[in-house]
């Protein structure tokens, strides 16, 4: 029962509880804040998995940009607390599907065999070269094209956002 496993257990519990809070809170602001907490836990996971760059990006992009955007929107729209609830049968069916998904995924994970580690990257290499440099090397050699295309995607998103949220001039 070493410190790593305990730490892992604590982070897991926090992540799952905050995820449940996201789903159950009546006030959307509370859901948003819970989601931020979940993202932080995930960032911790990435750090534990020898991927500090991913952890940093997770916080910057998700918790920092996307969640801020969401909170802005909630406040912009001045949303009241949910007035009507969903019908009971919808909630039940939705939960059933969710639980079935969990069971199947769990079964998959337990029964599946993962392939043996074959790649060149080892924790020692990550410690030696730095995760960012390694990611950078792969990104700008093998995955250069998707990288460039992504920039166009972001351009399209920007234009779309501007056009959609504009009030009509008349």
């Amino acid at each position: 029962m070493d410190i790593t496993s305990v730490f892992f257990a604590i982070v897991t519990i926090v992540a799952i509880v905050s995820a449940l809070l996201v789903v159950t809170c009546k006030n959307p602001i509370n859901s948003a804040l819970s989601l931020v907490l979940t993202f932080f836990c995930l960032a911790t996971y990435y750090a534990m998995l020898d991927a500090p760059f991913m952890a940093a990006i997770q916080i910057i992009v998700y918790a920092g940009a996307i969640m801020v955007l969401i909170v802005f929107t909630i406040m912009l729209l001045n949303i009241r607390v949910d007035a009507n609830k969903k019908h009971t049968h919808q909630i039940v069916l939705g939960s059933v599907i969710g639980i079935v998904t969990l069971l199947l995924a769990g079964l998959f994970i337990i029964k599946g065999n993962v392939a043996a580690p074959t790649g060149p990257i080892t924790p020692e290499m990550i410690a030696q070269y730095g995760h960012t440099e390694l990611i950078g090397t792969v990104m700008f050699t093998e995955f250069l094209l998707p990288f460039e295309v992504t920039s166009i995607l972001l351009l399209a998103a920007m234009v779309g956002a501007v056009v959609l949220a504009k009030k009509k001039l008349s």
Partner: protein
Amino acid sequence: MDNLNNYLLVSAVLFSIGTIGVLTRKNAIVVFMCIEMMLNAVNLSFVALSRHLGNLDGQVFVFFIMTVAAAEAAVGLALFISFFNNRESIDIDDANLMKW
């Protein structure tokens, strides 16, 4: 990696909680947040497996998922605002013009 299964299970749990949230909540923005949670669960899976297999491809893919999620957030929230301007409500059950 010996606790790969743990990471994958956590990822599965987060994913299913996200699914329940999408199907259960009425507020469109909360639904959107649950979708983000599902994406993140998948990100966790990718990173864990990439660490296990010793390959950085998984993490590069996570990078792209995040980019796409960001773009999607921008456009999606703009859509919500536009929807709200039309209907004064953010309830997804009010988006029912296709209902027969």
